[in-house]
């Protein structure tokens, strides 16, 4: 025969240890809302478990209703934690309503004598919170892009799957308990044996461990998001950074859809502009080019800043005419938007075709040659160097 008190003590201890680790390690690093809600869920699980341990003593009349309130609170906090990840506010009214209903049902059920006072309502309320939480996680999984190209080991997905698994497991358990409670009734010994304290504690320990894992994975994802962004994008133009452009271009080069056009772009007379009007004017020109270029290649390729005033574009298409059109569009808008005009703001382009069979560096060198041709032919033009025949 198992001992319910032992199971409760184990659950309370696991919750306490998870709380201390999560608070000191994860919450203090992120200070994120959802981490705070998860701490509160752990606290209320621990206290409610401790309060249930007084069942059978004279304190039961006070502590049993309190434990029920905290139990429904802990599931509501799980729900709030997931809502916070989605950027939504806690549903205070729903929480107050649920606590009031559970408290009424418990008080009406003679908590002094009956350990199961208000249990049916409590289980139904907890189940409701968990279903809502599981639903929110599902929405999160659907909303997030399947994978972030900047981050091949996408820990946010693992984290969300862990959270989903734990909320579904938790919810399924309370669903089963509710069915058991309705079908068997509190007088049946099998209710305690199958759906009672011991089994619930074991399920809760497992849920706690999985969900804490999911929450700390998620925190890590959030914490590195800014670093990943800083590493992947150029701070001034908002285009890809050099390293990120080369990495992604390398990936795309290996795509099976055939050759692609690689274009190098260089702002004309940039040094003159910088020297004559100062670095701030130069920065504004770069910024303008960045935004024009980003719009022009959106959805049809990638663009990065690979040097001071040098940019690179890799189009998904292998058709040179497409590249000419893109370059013309960029030049036209940049000419109109570049804030400082010393004559007309122009751009030179050098293009080549890159195929799967050659290295990216070789293609970059050819694009560089093409750019050199464009510069020497008088700038403000598009030149092409074909791939040498094999």
């Amino acid at each position, binding site marked *: *025969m*198992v*001992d319910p*008190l*032992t*199971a409760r*003590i*184990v659950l309370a*201890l*696991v919750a306490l*240890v*998870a709380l201390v*680790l*999560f608070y*000191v*390690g*994860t919450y*203090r*690093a*992120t200070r994120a809302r959802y981490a705070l809600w998860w701490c509160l869920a752990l606290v209320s699980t621990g206290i409610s478990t401790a309060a249930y341990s007084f069942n059978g003593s004279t304190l039961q009349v006070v502590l049993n209703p309190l434990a029920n309130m905290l139990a429904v609170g802990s599931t509501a906090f799980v729900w709030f934690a997931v809502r916070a990840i989605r950027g939504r506010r806690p549903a205070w009214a729903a929480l107050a309503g649920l606590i009031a209903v559970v408290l009424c049902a418990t008080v009406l059920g003679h908590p002094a004598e009956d350990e199961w006072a208000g249990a049916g309502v409590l289980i139904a309320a907890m189940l409701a919170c968990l279903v809502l939480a599981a639903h929110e996680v599902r929405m999160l999984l659907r909303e997030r892009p399947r994978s972030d190209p900047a981050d091949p*080991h996408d*820990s946010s997905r*693992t984290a969300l799957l*862990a959270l989903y698994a734990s909320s579904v497991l938790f919810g399924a358990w309370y669903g089963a308990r509710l069915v058991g409670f309705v079908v068997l009734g509190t007088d049946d010994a099998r209710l305690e044996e199958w759906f009672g304290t*011991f089994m619930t*504690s*074991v399920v809760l*320990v*497992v849920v706690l*461990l*999985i969900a*804490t*894992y999911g929450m*700390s*994975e998620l*925190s*890590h994802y959030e*914490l*590195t998001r800014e*670093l*990943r962004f*800083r*590493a992947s994008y150029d*701070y001034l133009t908002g285009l890809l*950074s*050099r*390293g990120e452009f080369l990495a992604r271009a390398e990936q795309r080069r290996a795509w099976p859809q055939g050759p692609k056009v690689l274009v*190098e772009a260089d702002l004309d007379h940039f*040094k003159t502009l910088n020297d004559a009007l100062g670095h701030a004017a130069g920065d504004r020109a770069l910024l303008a080019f960045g935004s024009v270029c980003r719009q022009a290649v959106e959805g049809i390729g990638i663009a990065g800043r690979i*040097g*001071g*005033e*040098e940019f690179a574009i890799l189009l998904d298409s292998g058709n040179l005419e497409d590249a000419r059109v893109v370059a013309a569009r960029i030049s036209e808008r940049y000419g109109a938007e570049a804030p400082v005009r010393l004559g007309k703001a122009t751009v030179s382009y050098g293009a080549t075709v890159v195929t799967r069979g050659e290295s990216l560096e070789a293609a*970059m*060198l050819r694009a*560089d*040659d093409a*750019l*050199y041709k464009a*510069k020497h032919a008088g700038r403000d033009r598009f030149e092409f160097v074909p791939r040498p025949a094999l």
Partner: protein
Amino acid sequence: MLDVETLRAIQPVITACVFALAFFGTYLPTRAPYAGWWSASAASAGIGSITHLAIDSWGDLAIAVGDALTVGAAACVWGAARSLSGRRVAAWWLVPAPLIVAAIALVEAHGDVAGMPGTLAVILGTGGYLGLAAWSLRGLLRHRSLRRGPGTLHAARVAIEAMVASTSIIVVFYAVRAVVYVTLGPEHVLYTHWTGPEATIVTVMLFFVVVTYSVTELSHLDSSLRWRDRAMRDDLTGLLARGAFMDLAEEALLHASGGGRRLVLVAADFDHFKQLNDTYGHAEGDRALRAFGEACRGLLRDDDLAGRIGGEEFELLLAETDLAEARQVCERLVAAFARSYDDSAIAAPTVSFGVAVADPSIPLPALIARADAALYQAKEQGRDRVVIADSES
């Protein structure tokens, strides 16, 4: 107070959960060796605790196998601790001790020994391996990259502290257990009450929870450090990016003003870089930048900072240096830079330097302006030279 049967029923569930999280959640995505060791430990402990449940049907054999697996689990914790500190553990190192413990258990089962056969051997074997693990982990507390750093590394720091603390606690627990067992015997109330199976199961379960959290956090340490590095560095030259250089230089100036350490700021700029680019193409220009970055990294000390501030502009912040030494550093940089072009048809671009001594009373932007003014003078005077800023200006 605690019921051992209940604990024995919960333990495999927790261990299975810990195994699943460590193996599927951490080891498979990251392939971190310590996560692998930790999964192995959880698996071994879990199977060990299930084997103990089969005593009724298997008898002494169940005890021996269970004991071996328990000690094996502790051995894997040592493996995890060693690989966390970057040292290797060969799997066969872990085989002998569990076999010896199992043999002792079998021998004692046939002899006339009080209590469970092999208990002392299990306590000593488990405690011993955990002690080795705690010893290996100690060094991690001084991990250089963890000493200072942004919030990303905070969690990893806490994870290591939690792991060291929990391992130390469990080692102390096993030591007390062994002492009580030897001096008072397995029947004594002190042993059964405070260090018996109930207390052991609870302690081990909580230890598992702590280590699983820590292993999860630490598995992110590598990727955090990598992203931090990528965010801070210019990836052509490998030197600090502009923002990171400014932040770190600001911090260094702040420290120096307290400790009275001398810092020298050097501004460097390639001569005629535009011509190089236009004549030989951007690839040549990139090569020059890369070579200069390499020269800087090869020459500077740990406390020095080097950043690429613009296209061909660099700033160096030299620690514990005077003007004569700073001038020497510039000359050696130029020499190393030129050497990297030894096998090349063209020569390395020449470099102009402006040098300014840090003064606690002037902020970083003013210091940079001072070095830039000296650099401008170097360009005016014909390039390819070092000019020291007039400290009165």
